[in-house]
């Protein structure tokens, strides 16, 4: 059967899970146009979906494959079906066109860089430390960080690979199209940030979480408030701080507190110099804006 574009050949993908929670897999399942996607792509192996081969076949033989997806952290002593994860990566690394690290664990190590395995880390980075053993694969790798990934970001990137689009990447190999934005961009609480209305309380529509509740959105790369989660919402819109899950620093300590030095946030909006930030903050804070001081929806 031909896909809607009249093509016969599907792109073959191997979804290889390392030290993972399967969150990326289930986030991927929220992709709204899965039927169309599965017409264009074929999983030679997927940890949940029916696939062409069994895990045993995949790890012991080299099957034809175009894109290798690595989900979860890797380590020296982690095995899938009794084969070391690094050996499985090496088995497919040279023959595939592209490697995509799916999620923050596969990209930076994420939460599981603290796991009990032997030197757990991402494919090319452990935190922001460059790893050398897969250096030769760097020019074919794309990182889709996030804990979990946004399904559209992953799927769009796979299509861009399929279409041989020239994908511009940032220093952590993330597509700029999705990671040049900060999570702050598009947040419904932006005005409270702009005018430094900092008295946020949980459970309310009003207020910005940057000042007291640890929100990392102004310095976290991601499209969470541009491409909404589950096509509905985002953490910050629903009153939860952004925990910076797309970054190499994830998970920081004290995730619900804003680290401040004498009342001044230690981490400032991405690329904004401290002096500029403080000057603007001082000026905007001076004005009390009635509309933002009261409830949005009054009784």
């Amino acid at each position, binding site marked *: 059967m031909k896909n809607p574009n009249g093509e016969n050949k599907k792109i073959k993908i191997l979804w290889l899970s390392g030290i993972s929670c399967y969150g990326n897999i289930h986030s991927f399942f929220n992709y709204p146009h899965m039927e169309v996607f599965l017409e264009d792509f074929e999983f030679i192996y997927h940890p949940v979906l029916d696939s062409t081969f069994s895990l045993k076949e995949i790890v012991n033989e080299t099957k034809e494959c175009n894109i290798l997806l690595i989900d979860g952290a890797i380590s020296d002593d982690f095995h899938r079906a009794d084969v070391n994860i690094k050996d499985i990566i090496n088995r497919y690394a040279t023959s595939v066109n592209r490697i995509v690290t799916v999620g923050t664990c596969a990209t930076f190590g994420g939460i599981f860089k603290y796991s009990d395995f032997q030197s757990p880390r991402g494919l090319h980075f452990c935190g922001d430390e460059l790893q050398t053993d897969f250096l030769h694969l760097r020019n074919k790798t794309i990182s889709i960080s996030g804990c979990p990934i946004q399904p559209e970001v992953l799927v769009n990137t796979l299509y861009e690979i399929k279409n041989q689009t020239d994908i511009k990447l940032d220093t952590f190999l993330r597509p700029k199209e999705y990671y040049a934005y900060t999570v702050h961009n598009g947040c419904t609480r932006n005005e409270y940030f702009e005018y430094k209305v900092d008295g946020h309380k949980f459970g309310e529509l009003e207020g910005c979480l940057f000042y007291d509740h640890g929100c990392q959105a102004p310095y976290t790369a991601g499209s969470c408030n541009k491409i909404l989660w589950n096509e509905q919402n985002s953490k910050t819109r629903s009153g939860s701080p952004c925990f910076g899950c797309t970054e190499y620093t994830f998970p920081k300590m004290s995730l619900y507190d804003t680290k401040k030095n*004498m009342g*001044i946030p230690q981490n400032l909006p991405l690329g904004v110099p401290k002096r500029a930030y403080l000057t603007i903050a*001082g000026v905007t804070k*001076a004005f009390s804006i009635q509309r933002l001081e009261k409830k949005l929806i009054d009784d």
Partner: protein
Amino acid sequence: MEKKVTKKEQIIQAALELFAYKGFYSTTIPDIASSLKMSVGNMYNYFKSKDILAKEIIKYISIYLGNELKKINEEQISTKEKTKKIVTMYFNIASSRPEMIDYFLRVYLSNREVFKDGCEGMACVSEFVTEIMIFFEEGVQKGELKEQDFFSAFGLFMGYLGGMVFLNGEKILPNELTYYIDDISNNIYNALKK
């Protein structure tokens, strides 16, 4: 353009001196104009009212002090050394250009109604406050100053310096301001350090 800026500065300097000598309310725009041998009409080309002039002056002082602080902030020295340099800088200005600090203390802080429209909060002193913030923030980040609320530290620092300049202005201090630099710097640093 250049000329206008210079003229503006001249007006600000003349006004500062008159405010210090005669008091803010007793000084009129014609007084300032005549001290500069300007016509009142020409004066209005620069400042449309005394209130506007008052606000411009505080911004001028804030920028002036802010620049001095910035130089200190950008030096690669310890927070303790910076503290001493700030105290020295402040007392030097209080001695060489007393009208400036005087204006800050006696006009800006004492006549808030003049500044309520357009100089809300710290809007007109932001350059100065920003540098103080940076001084504190970097001190905490380097582990030299203890973490505390900004205003409790700000009040301690600026209140102390302002108080000394005030005592000096009232001719109560037995010694020159500079005599106190070491002790005051140590006191401030000890109160803020980790």
